[in-house]
């Protein structure tokens, strides 16, 4: 008999995929809280650009001169908010947190394929977050070029505060993150292919597993591109190369070395990664939504096979449309037509999924629990955000909307809210299994409604601003005549943002209080059919107490005619 593991081995450097999943979850939660605070600072500046904040100057003496938020500080917040949310929240929580926790369980196996790689992957992600946060504390502070980090600004260390050591730390952080993601993706793919229990064929996997699988394949292929780009940018910054630096630049009268490079090359490399990245952020959420809808509609997912094919199609087509981020770069109009048409084509599998979700809900007896509300909310936000994506995918329209708030509204609805709703849905749904307690249903519903109304109040006006021509990433727009009439919208958005962020406190209180509640949850509180509801609560170290389950059924056998109960678990013959 081996000795029981000590605290460090059990909770810190654990090889247990469940512990690692929870670690990723809390990493994403921490990053989300920091990112949300940054978004509030952004909103303060946009609503009241000339207002002085003496108490903020105490915290950020260089960001606020005489209490006035400096434009560079504003841009640093914009950059770090985007980076934290996209990388540390949306790439981590849906895939690495819930995927690591539940993929092995839903497949009926005891562990991920490569537990040591899993461990390394988490701690590398942790290191990456640490390095990223460090950028806030070095001389000059965090970088100011947006999460897209376009050169030449990002290629010249002297180009501004934050573009020195801060930008280097950003690039190093991203490089580490790329490597960690690569390791994680290998683990997910191999686990899905090789670690399914008896009877679990690929087409009997829950849609959550298909979501994680597709996402892992996307990550495998896209993150190396970002890594290459980051490496080349570091070389431009410190080794005198000029991959991205055209010649003839000067900064404040001082000429900058560099000759013949192309900022467009960065855009191509970045967006070749960047577009698949956003599908990486949404696909696990889509899988979770399908899963939860079936559970609480007590109906199988409408068109399971179509859902699988649609996810794979989104994964494939996602690699072909990066140019739609670059429509105004002066590209050949024929290439633009190709990118535009392919962008619109991606609307087809997305629509298939949306209609299938609606088909799952149609005629069902809905149990509107909190996870179900968030799942239905996801559909609403996905439709809203997706439709504006189709608008932006048309080159002629994008000529007007690029770099306006229309784009910001689009991606916030779809990433900043829909994908986040996917995370919330997953949290409320799986909390009983992970932590053996139920979350409070009333607080959950309150959280949902406040957030749902709040995010629409915040982000629909973004589209209005965009149509009015309001540019992105401007620290002070009210000095421009044509935008001055929009300041009341900015105030509305900011107030809504503060209220919505405050509403997240309800979630946090609910979450942490429920962790320590007295009443334990049942093994299968939602009467689910898939294998995670077959385990103990929380699952034991090897998930199934030595008896590997045998799977006889499809994943969503709810309301089967003639059955004794309204659901049949996958393990029932």
């Amino acid at each position, binding site marked *: *008999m*081996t000795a029981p593991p000590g605290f460090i081995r059990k909770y810190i450097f654990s*090889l*247990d995929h469940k512990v690692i999943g929870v670690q990723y979850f809390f990493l994403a939660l921490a990053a989300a809280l920091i990112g949300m605070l940054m978004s509030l600072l952004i909103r303060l500046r946009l609503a009241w650009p000339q207002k002085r904040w003496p108490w903020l100057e105490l915290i950020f003496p260089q960001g606020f001169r005489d209490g006035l938020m400096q434009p560079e500080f504003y841009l640093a917040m914009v950059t770090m908010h985007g980076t934290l949310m996209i990388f540390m929240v949306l790439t981590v929580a849906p895939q690495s947190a819930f995927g690591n926790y539940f993929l092995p369980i839903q497949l*009926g*196996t*005891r*562990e991920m*394929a*490569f*537990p040591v790689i899993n461990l390394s992957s988490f701690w590398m992600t942790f290191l990456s977050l640490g390095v990223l946060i460090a950028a806030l504390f070095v001389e000059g502070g965090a970088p100011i070029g947006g999460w897209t980090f376009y050169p030449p600004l990002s290629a010249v260390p002297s180009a501004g505060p934050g573009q020195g050591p801060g930008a280097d730390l950003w690039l190093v952080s991203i490089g580490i993150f790329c490597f960690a993601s*690569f390791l994680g*993706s*290998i683990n997910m*793919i*191999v686990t899905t*292919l*090789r*670690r*399914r*229990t*008896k*009877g*679990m*064929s*690929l087409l*009997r996997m829950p849609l959550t597993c298909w979501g994680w699988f597709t996402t892992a394949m996307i990550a*495998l*292929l*896209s*993150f*190396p*591109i970002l*890594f*290459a*780009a980051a*490496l*080349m940018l570091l*070389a431009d910054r410190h*080794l*005198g*190369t*000029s*991959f991205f630096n055209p010649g003839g630049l000067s900064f404040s009268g001082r000429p900058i070395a560099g000759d*013949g*490079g*192309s900022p*467009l*090359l960065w855009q*191509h*490399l970045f967006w*070749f990664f960047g577009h698949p990245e956003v599908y990486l952020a949404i696909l696990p959420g889509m899988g979770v939504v399908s899963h939860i809808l079936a559970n609480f509609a007590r109906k199988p997912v409408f068109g399971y096979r179509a859902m699988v094919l649609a996810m794979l199609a989104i994964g494939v087509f996602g690699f072909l449309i990066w140019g739609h981020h670059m429509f105004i770069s002066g590209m050949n109009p024929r290439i633009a037509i190709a990118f535009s048409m392919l962008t619109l084509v991606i609307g087809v599998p997305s629509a298939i999924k949306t209609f299938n979700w609606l088909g799952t809900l149609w005629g069902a007896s809905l149990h509107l629990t909190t996870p179900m509300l968030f799942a239905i909310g996801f559909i609403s936000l996905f439709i809203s955000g997706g439709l504006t994506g189709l608008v932006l995918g048309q080159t002629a329209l994008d000529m007007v909307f690029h770099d306006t708030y229309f784009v910001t509204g689009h991606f916030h609805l779809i990433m900043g809210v829909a994908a986040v709703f996917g995370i919330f849905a997953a949290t409320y749904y799986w909390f009983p299994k992970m932590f053996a307690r139920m979350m409070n249903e009333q607080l959950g519903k309150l959280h949902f409604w406040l957030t749902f109304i709040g995010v629409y109040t915040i982000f629909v006006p973004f589209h209005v601003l965009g149509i009015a021509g309001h540019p992105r990433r401007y620290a002070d727009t009210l000095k421009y005549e044509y935008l001055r009439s929009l300041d009341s919208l900015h105030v509305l958005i900011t107030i809504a943002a503060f209220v919505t962020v405050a509403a997240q406190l309800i979630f946090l209180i609910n979450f942490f209080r429920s962790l320590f509640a007295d009443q334990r949850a049942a093994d299968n509180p939602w009467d689910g059919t898939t294998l995670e509801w077959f385990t103990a609560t929380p699952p034991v*170290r*090897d998930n199934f107490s030595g008896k*590997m389950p*045998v*799977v006889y059924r499809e994943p969503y056998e709810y309301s089967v005619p003639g059955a004794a109960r309204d659901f049949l678990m996958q393990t029932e013959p």
Partner: protein
Amino acid sequence: MPTLTKSKTTEPLVSDGGNGFDGSWGNGDGRDDDNQRDPERTPPESYRIGIRLTLISVAMLFLALTSGYIFNRAKNHPLIMPPVLWLSTALIIVSSGTIEVARRALRRRSESGFKIWISVTMALGLGFLASQLTAWHYLVESGFYINKNFHSGYAYLFTGLHGVHLIGGLIALAYVTLRAPEKWTVVRKRVTVDATALYWHFLDGLWIYLLGLLFFWK
């Protein structure tokens, strides 16, 4: 908890056409699942798929740099080829041969043969790295710094990244050679060596590609 017995005499000899991959992606018949006792062990088939996925990812990395090379029109700028790179090429090609000999020796249960040929491979690998550094030195001496022009810039990036991946391969080789035989089963060791050998062959092929891209594509 019962422990897995690691008896060498009862391990079946796998006749599988070369590198052991039986082509199965798993179909849920339970044959492909880990039904081992210890949750922290990995079944061998996973390594085979894992290494192929790794190679795909590494290929994407070099593809990204290649696209930059083309976009920046790097080949139009001058660059000399350090003659020592012919030695590099010979070393890495021979090392691919020796790792293959080592792999097959292990498959034939010749532990000593395996150890000898793996050590030769590692020595050749180290020789390759040394010749790479010599090549860099030659380039610097001839004035082709990393920032001289695009061609030299990409040359350093490409060969540097390739070298870093090779160092990773050397670490894998050392691990496979030095890990005590009683710490892992024969099958697991064999599959690990298979995976490392595949990785090594990939780096060899990648080197030939880089040589051609950097110095022969005009």
